[in-house]
């Protein structure tokens, strides 16, 4: 069996968090694990990659990899594959990951599996079908290396605290591979973590009664640390918070570890946007509210009493 490789995406001089997840998957395959990191900061990132199980890191700090979209990375990875013949290469399901994996497939003619949630062998990937209703294993046929795009946040990264040997990657990229130049990078400015990425989401609905009550949710989110605040459509329609807060059918879809729904009845339109949460905590004064049926922890009570008490308790425990 050949090696299992991970494409460790570099963003702004740092390695993207998906790399640790992909390395955790790669380790489980029992093969030799290596990572490819291309772009400024790659050599420094090798320590972090090693700590998550990469024995080898193919790295280049050359700016050609951050200055162009897709082409140079594809060229470099294709060269490495040609030389070392790994069995499988894992890519993150990010824009760059999808771009490079797609180009690579066209170049190598090997099998590309997209939207995997796990990999269980160098020729077997796991994915969801029918909108997440069924999980299936997919046999990867065709010549190696198999290319697999893994959905971010599919597994929890685990450290090995190992160290990696760094192998420099040549950065002589032909002009033809420099087709799309990266002119600018725009970061969406937002306070607090992004709703879609937050591990904990605190969300308010019509039961909050007005915009002022959202300060209460902000306080809870802050006490938890790294939590984002969202809202149901009713709260957004009422003008209490902007549309960017909206979670649901016509808003954002979130999949946090914990979802705290305060004063949200759980109309279908809302549930569509948060049903993927691992744990759901619902606080509602109406015991018949549909959200309580799907909650892991349902509190029938007044949000104006429960939320401040919860915030207080979390502060007490985290400070001690």
């Amino acid at each position, binding site marked *: 069996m050949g090696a299992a490789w991970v494409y460790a995406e570099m963003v702004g001089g740092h390695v993207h968090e998906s790399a640790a997840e992909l390395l955790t998957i790669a380790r489980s395959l029992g093969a030799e694990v290596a990572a490819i990191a291309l772009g400024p900061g790659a050599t420094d990132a090798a320590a972090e990659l090693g700590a998550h199980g990469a024995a080898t890191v193919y790295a280049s700090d050359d700016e050609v990899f951050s200055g162009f979209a897709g082409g140079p990375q594809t060229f470099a990875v294709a060269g490495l594959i040609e030389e070392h013949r790994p069995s499988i290469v894992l890519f993150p399901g990010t824009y760059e990951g999808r771009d490079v994996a797609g180009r690579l497939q066209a170049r190598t003619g090997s099998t590309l599996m997209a939207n995997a949630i796990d990999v269980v062998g160098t020729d077997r990937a796991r994915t969801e079908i029918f909108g997440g209703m069924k999980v299936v294993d997919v046999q990867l046929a065709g010549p190696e290396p198999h290319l697999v795009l893994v959905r971010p946040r599919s597994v929890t990264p685990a450290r090995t605290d190992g160290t990696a040997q760094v192998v420099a990657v040549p950065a002589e990229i032909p002009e033809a591979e420099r087709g799309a130049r990266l002119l600018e990078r725009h970061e969406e400015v937002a306070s607090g973590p992004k709703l879609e990425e937050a591990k904990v989401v605190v969300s308010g609905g019509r039961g909050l009664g007005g915009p002022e009550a959202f300060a209460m949710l902000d306080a809870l989110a802050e006490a938890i640390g790294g939590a984002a605040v969202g809202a149901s459509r009713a709260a957004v329609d009422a003008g209490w918070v902007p549309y960017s807060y909206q979670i649901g059918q016509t808003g954002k*879809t979130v999949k946090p570890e914990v979802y705290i729904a305060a004063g949200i009845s759980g109309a279908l339109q809302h549930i569509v946007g948060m049903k993927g949460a691992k744990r759901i905590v619902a606080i509602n004064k109406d015991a018949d509210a549909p959200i309580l049926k799907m909650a892991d922890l349902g509190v029938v009570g007044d949000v104006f009493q429960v939320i401040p008490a919860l915030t207080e308790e979390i502060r007490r425990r985290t400070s001690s």
Partner: protein
Amino acid sequence: MVLAAAVALFVARGRPRLDIVRAARPAGPLDHPGARARRELVQVLGQRKLFQKAIPGAMHATIFWGFLILLPTIAEAMLAVIDPAWTLPYLGHAAWFAFLQDLFATLVIVGVGVAFFIRKVQRPDRFRGSHMQEADRILLTILGIVTTLLLWNASRIALGYADHPDAAPVANALSSLFSGGRSTEVAERILVWAHLLLVLGFLTYLPRSKHLHIITAAPNVYLAKTAPSGYLEPLRIDLEGTEEDTRFGAAVATDLTRKQVLDLYSCTECGRCQEVCPAWATGKPLSPKLLIMGLRDQVVAEAPALLSAASGGIVELQPLVPNAVTDEVVWDCVTCGACVRECPVDIEHVDTIVDLRRNLVMAESRFPPEAGTMLRGVENSENPWGQPASARTEWTQGLDGIHVLEPGDPPPEVLFWVGCAGAFDERAKATTRSIARLLTAAGIDVAILGPRERCTGDPARRMGHEYLFQTLAEQNVETLNGAGVTKIVASCAHCFNTLANEYPDYGGAYEVVHHTELLAGLIRDGRLGAAAAAASGTVTYHDACYLGRHNGRYDAPRDVLRSTGAGTVEMPRNRERSFCCGAGGARMWMEEGGDARINDTRFAEAEGTGADTVAVACPYCFVMLDDAAKAKGSEVRVADVATLLAESVLAEPAP
């Protein structure tokens, strides 16, 4: 010679317009000639839709009927121009015709006066955005034509040319203005020439004006579809055989059908559509009138290119969206059909909007991003909310006697089409359970498809994703035909419309009834007992567009409500004039802009009746109006007709 010049000019100006219509894509089939002919009689000759507004209707009918009666007068005037003694062989000597001519000429003058009163004094908002000066010119010309006619007739009476002066009292009275001598002879010459020149001048003006409707309205009415207005013409997309010129909706002017182009020429900018449009009423940019005007302006501007394209030339045309109308306008439409229903000349705004959407969605993937979740849900999970198919039977828990049809089961007497909302939405599930309990109580075997039911495709279709709709329609028809289904009861107005009107195009012909119809029938037949607990309070019924206006089902839900013993009260806008809840046309899955929300506006109207309960007959209306009630913190309850009946007949609280 004057006549020849005028006619030549008319032809020269009108010909390009006709050529553009002829070059357009063929419209739908010209089925049911009897129904079309009847429509010409009732709607064109009878002016029925114009009378939807009493005074403007009477005004228009007077001018229109006057125009018909006075047509022979043009020939009369032409003869008289040559020789004052010449007149039409029979009509020119008939007393009754002299009377009618006199009467209608006078009535047209009154009509023009009323028209000016409406436009200058009343100034209704429906004229906002219309060409008001052009309308003034047209009205003044009409006034000139009939005034010269009356005065000409008066001079003829004075000169003794008229056979029956007494039959034309107005002209007779006016004849006293003329002495009868040489000056009257001159005046008679001037008047007949003035009359004829005005008529011919008007003729040459027509092709370039919005008054062209006097020529295009009758064919436009004839070409309008005979199917219920909820029906959409299919595109029949064959991905295997896609040719380069396959049309995915309307991208540029050459994609419009003949009917769609004729629609543009037929609009008089009367604004009746604008007045009833829920989007316009709540401060959105969409006005059906401005949409038609925008498209017309582009077709007119691109006329040379269109004609060149028709003869095989390669031309570059501007996309209709966003040039003629903006993206926002296209997405604001709830497809409620109020505009189509109101339009006196049968312009079919909704079908054109859906055609514009089809191009945006299928060719350009350009639509409000928040609606993407719905399309993905329908595509991946076969329901707009992306719920698992296995959850389609969750509502049956605790209910007895519900038969989930398995492949190979004998055909059901009637299939209950639950619909996605009815299966997944908490509020709509209450309706579903009520219907099931009522049918069971009436001794009907409740058969459902359960996990084998798929979205009918309605939201995808109204959004313009014809291909997704087609896929679902074909799959559903296969399931239904395979199960031997002949009769379907649907609880969702949108499912009802799609199953009844649109599935026949895909090989699925069933007798489709709405649950309120089935329930009303069961009550009539005595199969559902008399009210065990007479309902108290008053109920107002909200007509669902796809049940009422689009399909003419108004009475059954009202009959059911009356049977519960509740007092009923109507909203100001009811039945065919009902105001949408805001969810149709896939608007259910989009965010709403504008000054106000459509559902809030409608709910306020319902609340204004003083009713304790707003009864609905469609899960979309239910969700929209209930959301509005909750947002307002209103005590008024929103419930489906079936739930209100179940509470009354079964004397049990709602499940």
